[in-house]
Structures are given as structure tokens and as C-alpha cells.
């Protein structure tokens, strides 16, 4: 049913709204969502976003497979997720409506591009009858707007070809929604000019379309009323809106600056990690070297070679690439050189769901190498946290002279959130001492350099760079003699070295923060333990459960190997331990083995983040069962 109420005078104030833009891959929905997000950010809302696009570059127009969507939640208070069910769906064609309508909230507002609902498009989208007419949308507030023709009408006067004119319809939609949610207009207009500076006609067309959409909202008598979401009361500071991949790239640049080591990235493109390579390749004035290698093995190999040369070596990839890198990881940990291995997890196994999110690479990160080959493993919890964590990963790698695995995922990689910029001066000093002198005396009194003569505290080995006189030494993947580092097949030496390598990594636990418990620390009936990108959803779910009168504690792990020293005590403190993960229970397995606590899993593997709602229910279920 189409709504024809008269517009209300003043905008209605709401505390939060979830909007989902959906259209054809070619319709520019990611751009539209992105733009709406930025202007909301600039306006001062808190927000979180969830881009959701197909694996194909551009599936055939109008098909369900081709639908590309972007969801954003904006609010006047601190939020941690893009929200569950959208309050507003903007559907640019029938396929978008068909594929998305299932997710939206009851009584949600649905804005459709009426022009797109011709019979061919309906058929393509798998509709036998027109959902705008057949009652499919009963219960929703539907606005049917002929966006294509209105855009054409507005733009064609500029002398733009029809087809090109219609391309601007996403800006019409953006203008309309901006009006509905009383977003500031100027930032977007300025952005259009900047973004399309090289294509003035396109810039002009988009500007006109945007304004037309905005005006349409204003004038057309068909919108019930507009809404307003006040700025959020966030801590004072300078904010910017970042994706996890950008934050990660910047964190790596920061780590390079803080350590004084040039950054070297050896990588092979793979979704959803490629953008880190793209971002870093732009910052050559920071002395960042990037190599698009012939494959993932060469990527990590080159990074390792650079590390031997004294650079901050980094390799970035996703699951399939991680699998390929495992042999070289084993070499790197035997060479005991610093190296950052970054895995942006995606749906698996095998090629799986390349553009979707998942947390199923944890056990591979922990155990996916032959022999006894422990490595530190970290996981980021939010887009902006990726910045901090890149620096922490570098700190560990450089201090303990070890490869470090940093886990992110598709959701963090492409999702955004407002980020309060850190004070650069407050970032940790990662300065490294290289070996410059012999560190061992031979029986004959001659002085030599022993590459495996360790620091007694950290058990880290000295790092002597090629080019340093008198410290020439050879390292390799064969077992090495303790101290001298010469090849050794001595059984007792091997046993010692295996245990030293293990002790070195385990010892890091003394230099990382203890696990922090939040929520009902003292009297929780249940503790929820999470890791990585589920943080927002878990946090949201936990507060909901509390609202329903339960007492729940939370622990969210950033360091997965070694685990925080106090974790065992913490978990034993609570009658129930529940571990939500986007896999089949990988962390819970670890916790059970480590602490013999009966950790219970809540698992989803749909390529999507948890919704707070489903997690709330899952936690409530676990509260039902006696501990």
C-alpha cells in the first residue's frame, strides 16, 4: 500500500535508525551508503556499517546474484554494530527488494524505485507478480518513487545522454534519504565536486540528481514525516571514519614510524585483504615498499627476506593464502625474525564465500604448521581497533623476534566506525636495538657473534643486520645449535631448542594485559567470552540480557596466543562460560583444553556477523540450563 499522509511540520527525533541501501552491483550502492555514512559521521552521530556485496565483479543486471547492499546504523549514543533489522530499506530494483525484504524490521519503511518494477525486471528477480501490488509489502510503509525518470528529468537538461543521466539515480536516492534524516547537504555536494573533479559533467549530473532527490522529499506530499538523529555524546576529540583495512594499513605505517624500521609489504591480492596492499602502496613518502608478489608464498618469502635485512616485514592475505604461507611461517619462526602475518578471514573452507565474513581460521593460525611451531596470535575487535593492534603485533614481533599472526575478517575489513584519533605522541616506542658487536667468546679467546645467544628475559635472539662488520652469520631452517646457531642434529639440543621456542612465546603472557572482565563482574550467572569482530554484537546482546534482569559478565580476547595469564581464574569464577563464534567452536576448544572449563559454544557460519538479537536469545538459552 502506498502512503499518502501529509508531511509533519518538525522532524521527529529518534535515537537511532538502521538504513539499508540495496541495488544492482552497477547502481553504486556502496558509494551511496558510504556517502550517507560520512555525512552522518561529520554530523556527529555514532555509527557502524556493513557492506554486503557479491563475489562476482558485476553479475548480470537485475538478478538476485547481482544485488549489492550497504547497511548503516546511525545513533545519538554509543553503538557497536550496524544493527540487526533495517528500519529503512532503499531498493533500487525488484531483485534488491526480493533479496533484502526478508531482513527488514516489521513495519519498516521501504523506498523503492518504481520505474524499475517492469515485468522483465520482476521476472529476473523471480517475482511472478508485482510485490508493490500483490500485498507482499502489507505492513510496511512503502514509498514508490520513480527515481529513474525523476533523475532523468532533472539531469537531461544538462545535455547528458539518457543512459548516463540515469546513472545518477543513486544520488537522487541519497538526496531523498538525506532529506528524510535531515542530514547536512553541503559536505556531500563538496565531496561530489572533489570526487568527480576530473569528470565535471558527471559531477554536475550527480549534484543535480542529489538536489532533486532532496527537493522531492521536501515537496512531494507523500512522506509521512522526516526524522532527526541527534549527534552522539562521544568523548571529545578529532574523529574520522575508517574501515578496518585502512586502520590496519595506517597502523602498519605507524609501527614503521615508531620503530624506525622501513615498512616492507610482500603480498598477493585476495579478497578481502587486497585493500591493505592498495592503501600501503600509496604511502611511498613514508618509505613503504610494497611488492605484489607472484603468489602468497613469494609474498611472505619477500617479507621475510626484507626482515632479515632489517625492515618491518609484513604479509597480508586471507584464508587460502594463509594455507599457502604455512611452510614459510615455519621457516620464519625457526629463523626467529620479526614478521607480521595478517589474515583477513573470509567464508571457507576452500574458496568458500570470498566476500563474506567468518572467524574460522583461528585453529589454523594456532596450529597450521608442521612440527612444534608456536606463534603469537592476535585478533582485532573493531575497525578502528585494527590500528592499535597492528602496533601491538609489531611490538611483540620486534621484542620477541618472532612472526606474529594478526586476525581480522571481512566484516572489520570493510565495515567502518567513527574513530577518535589517537595522540600520535602517546603511541608506544617500538625502537629496536640491533646487534653491533660479537656476543660470545670462543675458548681460544676470539670473539664471535652467536645469532642464537638469547636475551635471558625475553629469550629473544639478537638481530644482526647484513652490512654490520664482523657479525657475519648464517641462519637456516635446519635445527640449530643453541647459542651458536650452527646446524645441529644433536638430540638433546633439539629437545632444548623446541622447548626454548615454546617458552619464548609462552613468556609473552607476562607482557600483555590481563583479561579484563566487564559487566556484572562480581555476581554474573554467566560469562560470555569472545574474540575478534564479534565484540560489538556480544556487547549489544549482553546489555539486552541484562535489561531482561540477568547478570552477565564479558571477556573479549585480543591476545589468543599466549592467552592472558589470569584467564583461567577468571573463567572458573563464573558458573557458566559461553563462547560465541562465527565458526564451529574454535576458541571454546582452546579454553576447554587450556583450563578444563566446560565452555559452551554459540556458533553461526552464515558469512554474516552475529545479530545482537540472536545472541541475546542464545545467551538466554544458556541461562536456562543449570550450570
Amino acid at each position, binding site marked *: 500500500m502506498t502512503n499518502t499522509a501529509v508531511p509533519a511540520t518538525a522532524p521527529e527525533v529518534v535515537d537511532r535508525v538502521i538504513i539499508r541501501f540495496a541495488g544492482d552491483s552497477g547502481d553504486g550502492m556502496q558509494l551511496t551508503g558510504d556517502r550517507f555514512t560520512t555525512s552522518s559521521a561529520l554530523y*556527529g552521530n555514532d555509527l557502524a556499517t556493513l557492506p554486503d556485496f557479491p563475489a562476482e565483479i558485476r553479475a548480470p543486471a537485475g538478478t538476485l546474484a547481482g544485488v549489492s547492499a550497504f547497511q548503516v546504523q546511525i545513533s545519538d549514543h554509543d553503538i557497536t554494530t550496524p544493527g540487526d533489522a533495517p528500519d529503512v530499506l532503499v531498493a533500487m530494483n525488484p531483485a534488491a527488494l526480493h533479496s533484502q525484504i526478508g531482513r527488514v524490521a516489521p513495519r519498516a519503511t521501504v523506498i523503492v524505485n518504481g520505474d524499475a518494477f517492469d515485468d522483465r525486471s520482476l521476472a529476473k528477480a523471480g517475482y511472478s507478480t508485482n510485490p508493490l501490488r500483490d500485498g507482499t509489502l502489507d505492513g510496511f510503509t512503502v514509498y514508490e518513487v520513480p527515481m529513474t525518470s525523476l533523475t532523468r528529468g532533472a539531469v537531461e537538461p544538462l545535455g547528458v545522454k539518457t543512459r548516463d543521466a540515469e546513472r545518477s539515480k543513486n544520488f537522487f536516492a541519497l538526496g531523498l534519504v538525506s532529506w528524510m534524516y535531515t542530514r547536512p547537504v553541503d559536505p556531500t555536494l563538496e565531496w561530489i565536486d572533489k570526487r568527480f573533479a576530473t569528470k565535471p559533467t558527471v559531477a554536475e549530473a550527480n549534484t543535480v540528481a542529489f538536489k532533486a532527490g532532496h527537493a522531492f522529499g521536501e515537496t512531494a506530499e507523500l512522506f509521512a514525516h522526516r526524522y532527526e538523529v541527534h549527534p552522539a555524546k562521544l568523548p571529545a576529540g578529532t*574523529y*574520522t571514519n575508517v574501515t578496518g583495512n585502512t586502520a590496519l594499513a595506517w597502523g602498519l605505517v605507524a609501527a614503521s614510524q615508531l620503530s624506525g624500521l622501513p615498512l616492507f609489504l610482500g603480498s598477493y591480492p585476495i579478497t578481502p585483504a587486497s585493500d591493505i596492499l592498495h592503501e600501503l602502496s600509496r604511502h611511498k613518502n613514508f618509505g613503504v615498499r610494497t611488492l605484489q608478489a*607472484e603468489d602468497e608464498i*613469494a609474498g611472505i*618469502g619477500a617479507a621475510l*627476506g626484507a626482515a632479515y635485512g632489517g625492515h618491518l616485514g609484513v604479509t597480508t592475505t586471507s584464508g587460502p593464502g594463509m594455507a599457502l604461507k604455512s611452510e614459510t611461517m615455519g621457516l620464519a619462526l625457526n629463523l626467529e625474525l620479526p614478521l607480521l602475518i595478517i589474515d583477513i578471514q573470509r567464508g571457507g573452507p576452500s574458496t568458500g564465500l570470498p566476500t563474506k565474513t567468518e572467524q574460522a581460521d583461528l585453529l589454523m593460525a594456532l596450529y597450521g604448521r608442521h612440527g612444534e611451531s608456536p606463534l603469537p596470535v592476535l585478533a582485532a575487535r573493531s575497525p578502528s581497533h585494527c590500528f592499535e593492534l597492528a602496533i601491538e603485533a609489531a611490538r611483540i614481533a620486534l621484542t620477541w623476534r618472532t612472526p606474529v599472526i594478526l586476525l581480522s575478517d571481512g566484516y572489520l575489513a570493510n565495515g567502518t566506525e567513527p574513530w577518535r584519533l589517537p595522540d*600520535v605522541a602517546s603511541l608506544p616506542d617500538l625502537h629496536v636495538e640491533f646487534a653491533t658487536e660479537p656476543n660470545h667468546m670462543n675458548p681460544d679467546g676470539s670473539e664471535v657473534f652467536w645469532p642464537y645467544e638469547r636475551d635471558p628475559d625475553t629469550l629473544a635472539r639478537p638481530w644482526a643486520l647484513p652490512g654490520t662488520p664482523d657479525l657475519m652469520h648464517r641462519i637456516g631452517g635446519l635445527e640449530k645449535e643453541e647459542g651458536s646457531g650452527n646446524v645441529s642434529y644433536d638430540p638433546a639440543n633439539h629437545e632444548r631448542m623446541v622447548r626454548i621456542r615454546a617458552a619464548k612465546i609462552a613468556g609473552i603472557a607476562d607482557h600483555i594485559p590481563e583479561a579484563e572482565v566487564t559487566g556484572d563482574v562480581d555476581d554474573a550467572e554467566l560469562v560470555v567470552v569472545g574474540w575478534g569482530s564479534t565484540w560489538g554484537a556480544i556487547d549489544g546482546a549482553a546489555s539486552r540480557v541484562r535489561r531482561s534482569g540477568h547478570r552477565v559478565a564479558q571477556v573479549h580476547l585480543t591476545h589468543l596466543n599466549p592467552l592472558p595469564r589470569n584467564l583461567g581464574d577468571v573463567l572458573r569464577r563464573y558458573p557458566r562460560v559461553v563462547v560465541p563464534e562465527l565458526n564451529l567452536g574454535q576458541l571454546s576448544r582452546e579454553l576447554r583444553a587450556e583450563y578444563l572449563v566446560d565452555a559452551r559454544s554459540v556458533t553461526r557460519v552464515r558469512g554474516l556477523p552475529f545479530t545482537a538479537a540472536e545472541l541475546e536469545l542464545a545467551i538466554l538459552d544458556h541461562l536456562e540450563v543449570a550450570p
Partner: protein
Amino acid sequence: MSDTVIPVTTRKDWSSDQEVRWCPGCGDYSILAAVQLLMPDLGIRREDVVFVSGIGCAARFPYYMNTYGMHTIHGRAPAIATGLAMARPDLHVWVVSGDGDALSIGGNHLIHALRRNINITLLLFNNQIYGLTKGQYSPTSEVGKVTKSTPFGSLDHPFNPVSVAIGAEATFVARTHDMDRKHMMEVFRRAFEHRGSSLVEVYQNCNVFNDGAFGEITAKQNRDEMLIPLRHGEPIRFGAEGSRGVVIDGQRGAHIVDVADVGEDALLVHDETRSDPSVAFMLSRLARGPHEPTPVGIFRAVERPEYGEGVSRQLAVAQKERGPGDLETLLRSGATWEVG
């Protein structure tokens, strides 16, 4: 690094304290000697040299050099060396590899290093066998080779390492053999001096698992007739008093003639520097295996921008144009807003 006068050194200074662990009689010993003897002449410091290798008998090489060294994993040395050479243009990076290491598991890294023209000097010890794993055939073994893994004879047509390298856009390609120290040293020196990737195939005898593979052409008494020395700017001839020579024609490619029949002027004059690699490729096809007269020396040596330099130049330009990177500015490069 360190003071500017290069200290005078001898072979001893370039030899590590590790005892050499190849089989007695292995051709690797003479290659090691050639390299250790050459080093003092190159006007470089030991600390500025890194030997990178994969896995195999040949790959043990770095342990015996008193330089920096990485004995890495099977087949990956060219990739690891690529990162090191990109990161540290001030170093002299050598890669030592076997025919299995470089052409079987490591074939892809090899050809990509060559096309990028990264500044490494790559010695490929070709013994036409897997030595360290006790004698399986390799990608350079002749068809029909009977080994542990091919008791009925191998079926795989072998690679010609020089042809592979030329097909992969290599800028420097040469061949030498373990029986001629002087020739090895000449070729290694040229390879070292080349800016970019240089590949040297070294015919090497594995006296335990493939003894005499190259005897027909490298044995002292056979060399005259069986080795075709390539000398830049000179007509290509060989044999007693240079009685035989190489000519090229469009229909038949490169082939061997009696100089008496065609006259000296008809001979192909060797030119390492042809930008078109076709003639070098033709020469690489003269012998179908080390039992026909085989060219040794430098097939191709051309100038092409070296990868690491290009990388450094891009950094320098970026810093010149945009100034050295500033973290504050980077973090604020997107749209920002203040919350007061």
C-alpha cells in the same frame, strides 16, 4: 657501511669455520673454490654480501661462506632474495640453487625474479639429479633416465635452463661448468657485475647419483670439440684451431658448420647485448643435451632498469613531491570532525 677502504682479503677470509659436508668428489667443491677465490677480487666487503639458498646439496653453499647467509626452504630462495634485495640495495645478494630447487619447486619464483630484473646473482648448480634426496630425476634429466622414482625410465621432456631464462625475459644468462675454475670465475664475475638478475647455469657433477653426466663435454680431452665458447664480438667458433663454427639462417635456426665450407665471414658474431633475445635463444638450442657441442659463456647481457632501483626511485620521488610522511597528517587524510 664501515670505512671506505676495502680491506685486502684472501680466500681464507671468505671461508666460514663450518666444515664442508658434500660427498668426497662432488663438483660443488670446485664451484665453492671458484667463488671463494673470486670474492677477494670483487672489491666488496664480506659483511655486504648475503648468500641465500633453498634446500638441496647445492643449497648448503651459504654455510661455507664467511658472509651473511640464509639457508631457507625448498624452492623459495629467489622470492626471499627478492625481498632482501628490494629492501637493501646496498647489499650484494647471491642465490645458490640446484636444478630441482630452482626449476622444479622453485620454477615460478625463478622466472618472476628474472622478469623483474631484481638485483641478484643466481647460480644454478645443474647436476641433472636430486642429490640430497638420494637420486630422483630432476627437470633437467634426460628423457628415459632410470632413477629411484623412474625405474622404467623417465618420460618428462627436460627444461633447458638457458632457454627457460631467456623465455622469461632474463637480462643476463650464462653457462659454465665445474671442471674449469678459470671459466667459472670469469662468468661469475660478469654475473656479479650485471645490474639486475643474472642467471648462471653451472654444469655440476654429482659423482654419487649421476656421475659423469657432463663428462662428454667437460672432460679435459673433450672440451675442444664439445664446448662452444661464446665471446662477445667474436665469430662463434670452436674445435681444433677453431675449425668449426656456428651460423644462423631463418629456415634452420642456428647450426654448426665447418668454417672451411662457409668461410669465416659467414659465422655468427656473438653479441651479448642484442636487445632482441631471439639469437641468444637460438644459441641455447644448439645442443639438445650435454652430449652435443654445447655453448658456454655469456648468452645474453643487456641493460634494463633494475627492480630495486625503480622501487627506491619511486620512494624518493614521493618524498620529494609530498615530503617525508607525517603520521598526524595521514590519520587526518580522510574527512574528520571534532567532538568538543
